[in-house]
C-alpha cells in the first residue's frame, strides 16, 4: 500500500477506536454518573453497577488502544496532544483511576460509609472523564496554539492548559456529559427490571431535554468557533444532519417505551457525531490556531511507511479476534439485572 493510503487507513482506524470508545464507554460513564442519584438502596446501586460490571474494563481498553495506536501511527499527534492537554489528561486519569478502583472495591466492605464513598467516586470519576474528553475534543476541532515545532505553547507560561477552558470547550464538555448521561439512562432502562427500570426511564426523559438543548447549542457554536463552513460547507452533509435527527428521534422512542430503539438512536447520534468530528479534522489531526501551516496532519505526524505496514498487518489479524470475543461477552451477559442479592456480584 502507498504511504498515503496507510496514513489514511490509520487515521480511520484510530477514528474507529475513538468511536467505539465513545459508544461503549459512553453508557458506562452515564451509568456511573447516574449511580448515586438513581440508586437509593444498596442493592439498587449494586444492580446498577452490575449492568456494566462485566464489560466496563474491556470498554475502557478502547481508549488505551486508541492511545497506543496514536503513539505507534502518529507519534507527533500523540506527543503534541498528550503534552499539550497535560492537566485535563491528568484529571481524566484521576477520574478513570478512582472510578475503576471503585467498581472492584465498593462491595468488598459492608460498611455503608465505605460503599457510599466509592459510589460517589464512580460518579465523580465518570463525570470528570466525560467532561474532559468532551472539552478536549471540542478544542481539537477549534484549534489550539501549536507552534512551528509542533509544540503546544502555553498562553501564559504559568499553567499549560488553562486555555482549553474556553466557552466552546466547555460547551463540548457539558454536551458530552449530558449525552453520555442519556446514553447511560437508556442502557439502564434496557438492562434493569422493575421499579428501578421505570426510574431510569423517567430520568431519561429529562436528560433528553438537556442533551437536545446542549447539542443544539454545540451545533450553533461549531459554526462560530470552528472552520466547518469552509471545511464541510454551510450544509455540512448527510452525516451531521442524520446525527442531529437521531438524537431528536430519541424522545419519541422513550415516550413509547421502546428502550431498545432509544438506545440505538442515541448510539447512532454518538457514532455519527464522532464521524463528523473526524471528517472535519481530516487530514489534520491537530489544528494550529496560530498558523494553519503549523497544523499537524496525517502526513507530517505519522510514523514511517514500514511501521505503518507492520502495524496494519498486526491490526488486520487481531482486531477481528478482539471484536469477536468482546461481542461474545455482550451476548453472554445479555440478561436483565435484578436487585435480587443472590444474583448480584459487585
Amino acid at each position, binding site marked *: 500500500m502507498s504511504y498515503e493510503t496507510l496514513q489514511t487507513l490509520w487515521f480511520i482506524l484510530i477514528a474507529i477506536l475513538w468511536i467505539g470508545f465513545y459508544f461503549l464507554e459512553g453508557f458506562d460513564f452515564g451509568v456511573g454518573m447516574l449511580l448515586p442519584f438513581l440508586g437509593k438502596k444498596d442493592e439498587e446501586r449494586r444492580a446498577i453497577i452490575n449492568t456494566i460490571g462485566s464489560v466496563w474494563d*474491556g470498554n475502557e*481498553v478502547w481508549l488505551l488502544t486508541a492511545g*497506543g495506536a496514536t503513539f505507534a501511527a502518529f507519534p507527533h499527534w500523540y506527543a503534541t496532544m*498528550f503534552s499539550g492537554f497535560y492537566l485535563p489528561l491528568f484529571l481524566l*486519569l484521576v477520574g478513570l483511576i478512582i472510578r475503576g478502583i471503585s467498581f472492584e472495591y465498593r462491595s468488598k466492605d459492608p460498611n455503608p460509609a465505605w460503599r457510599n464513598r466509592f459510589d460517589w467516586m464512580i460518579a465523580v470519576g465518570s463525570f470528570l472523564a466525560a467532561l474532559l474528553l468532551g472539552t478536549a475534543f471540542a478544542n481539537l476541532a477549534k484549534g489550539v496554539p501549536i507552534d512551528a515545532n509542533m509544540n503546544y505553547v502555553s498562553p501564559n507560561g504559568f*499553567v499549560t492548559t488553562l486555555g482549553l477552558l474556553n466557552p466552546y470547550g466547555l460547551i463540548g464538555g457539558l454536551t458530552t456529559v449530558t449525552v453520555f448521561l442519556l446514553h447511560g439512562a437508556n442502557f439502564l432502562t434496557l438492562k434493569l427490571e422493575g421499579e428501578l427500570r421505570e426510574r431510569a426511564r423517567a430520568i431519561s426523559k429529562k436528560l433528553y431535554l438537556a442533551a437536545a438543548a446542549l447539542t443544539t447549542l454545540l451545533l450553533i457554536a461549531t459554526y462560530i468557533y470552528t472552520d466547518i463552513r469552509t471545511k464541510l460547507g454551510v450544509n455540512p452533509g448527510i452525516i451531521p444532519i442524520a446525527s442531529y435527527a437521531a438524537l431528536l428521534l430519541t424522545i419519541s422512542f422513550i415516550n413509547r417505551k421502546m428502550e431498545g430503539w432509544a438506545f440505538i438512536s442515541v448510539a447512532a447520534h454518538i457514532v455519527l457525531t464522532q464521524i463528523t468530528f473526524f471528517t472535519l479534522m481530516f487530514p489534520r489531526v491537530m489544528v494550529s490556531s496560530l498558523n494553519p501551516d503549523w497544523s499537524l496532519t496525517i502526513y507530517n505526524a505519522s510514523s514511517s511507511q514500514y511501521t505503518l505496514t*507492520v502495524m496494519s498487518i498486526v491490526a488486520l489479524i487481531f482486531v477481528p479476534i478482539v471484536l469477536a470475543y468482546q461481542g461474545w461477552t455482550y451476548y453472554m451477559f445479555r440478561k436483565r439485572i435484578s436487585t435480587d442479592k443472590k444474583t*448480584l456480584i*459487585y
Partner: protein
Amino acid sequence: MDPITLSRWQFGLTTVYHFLFVPLTLGLGWFVAYMQTRYYQTRDETFLKMAKFWGKLFLINFAIGVVTGIVQEFQFGMNWSEYSRYVGDIFGAPLAVEALLAFFMESTFLGVWIFGEGRVPEKVHLASIWLVALGSNFSALWILLANGWMQHPVGYVINEAKGRAELVDFFALIANPKGWMFFWHTISSGLATAAFLIIGVSAYHIIRKQNVDLFKRSFQMAVVVGLVTSLSLFLAGHTMGQYMYETQPMKFASVEAHWETSAPADFSIITIGDLSGKREVWSWRLPRVLSFLACNNFDCEVRGVNDIQAEYEALYGPGDYIPLMVVTYWTFRFMMTIGFFMIAASAYFLYLSLNDKLEKSKWLRWMPAMISLPYIANMSGWILTEMGRQPWIVQGLLKVEDAVSPNLTTLDLWISLIGYTVVYGALAVAMVKLMTKYAKAGPDAAMHESVDVVPALVGADD
C-alpha cells in the same frame, strides 16, 4: 525543582508504584488458574475454595495494577513528548500491540471470570482465568520488549531529516535478547512474589490452625514454585548481567562500583565510597568473581567506570555518563540478598512440608512479614535497571534531559506530582485494608460473591 527533575520524580514514583502490583498479578493468576483446573479435574472442594480465596486476593490486587497502568501508557506523551517524537516510530508499536493483544484479553476475560460463574459453561469459565493469566503475561512481554529496546536499541536507523529513530526490522525488535531476558526475569519474579504471598498468608492460618488442609496444600504448591522461580531468577539475572556487560558496560561497572579496569576483576560485597561518590574508600571483595559474572570466566578483563567514561566522552561528547552509583550499587545488593534468602526459605520449607514437620517450625511465624521481601527486590531491580541507564533514556541515542516535554511548567508538574501522590497513597490504604481483611478472613468469606453474605467473618479480625 526544574521541570526535568519533577518529571523524573513523577515517572519514577508512578512506575515503581505501578510495578508494586504488577508482579503479583503476573504470578498469582497462574496459581488461581491451576487451582481451578485441579478442582475441575478432581471435584475436590478444597481446590475450589483455594481458587476462590486466592482469586479474591488476585482481584483486589489486579484492580490497582489496571488503573495505574493507564497512567503508564499516557505519560510518555504527557511528560516525555520529545522522547515520544524521537522513538514513537519504534516504541509505539509494541505498546499498541500490548493494548490490542493483551489488555483486551485480560480485561474482557476477567469480566467473564468474575461474572461468568454459573452463567457461562464451566469450561469457558475455567478457560477465562487461563486467558486472564496469559493476557497479563503477554502484556508484560510487550512492554518489556519496548523497554528492552530502550536499554539495547536494535532494528532501527536514524532518520536525520526527521530527527528520529525509525524501525527497519520489526523482527529484530521482537527478538531483542534484552527484552526476552527481562521477560524471563519478570515472570520468575512474579511467580516468586505470588509464592511468597501464598507462603506468608498460609503460614498465618496454619499457625492458627484454621483451614489447615487448604493452607498446607497452598503452602506446598507455593514453596515448590518459590524454589524453582527464585533459582530461575538467579539464572536469568546472571544471563542478564553478562548481556549487560556486553551492551551496557557502564551500568554493569556502576552496579559493581568497579572503578578501574582490571583482569581478573574482584566482586565487591560491600564498598564504601567517599562523599563525591567517585572514589572508593574501603571495600570487602571476593577475588575474581566479577570476571565470572561478566564473562563466565575467572580471568577475563572487566572494564571499569573511569575507562568507559573516557570512551563515552570520546564517542558522545563531553558529559557525565556515570549513573548514580550509590543507587545502582545498593539496589543490586538488596535484590541479591533477598534472592538468596528466598532460595533458602523456600528450600527449607519445602523440606519441612515434604517431611510433614511444617507446623513444628518456629520460623513459620516469620513468614507473613516476609511477604514484603519480594516487593523490595522487585522495586530494587527496576530502579537499578532504569537508573543504571542514566543519563540515557534510550541507551546511546537520546538523553533524558532531551526527552522531556518542553511546554510543561513547574506548576503543571507540581500539580500532577502532588495529585498522583495523594491519589496513589489513598489507593494503597484501601488496597492494603482489603487485602489484609480478606487474607485474614480465610476461604469462607471468599466463597461468597459479595461480602454481604458473611459480614461477620470478613470483619472478624478488624
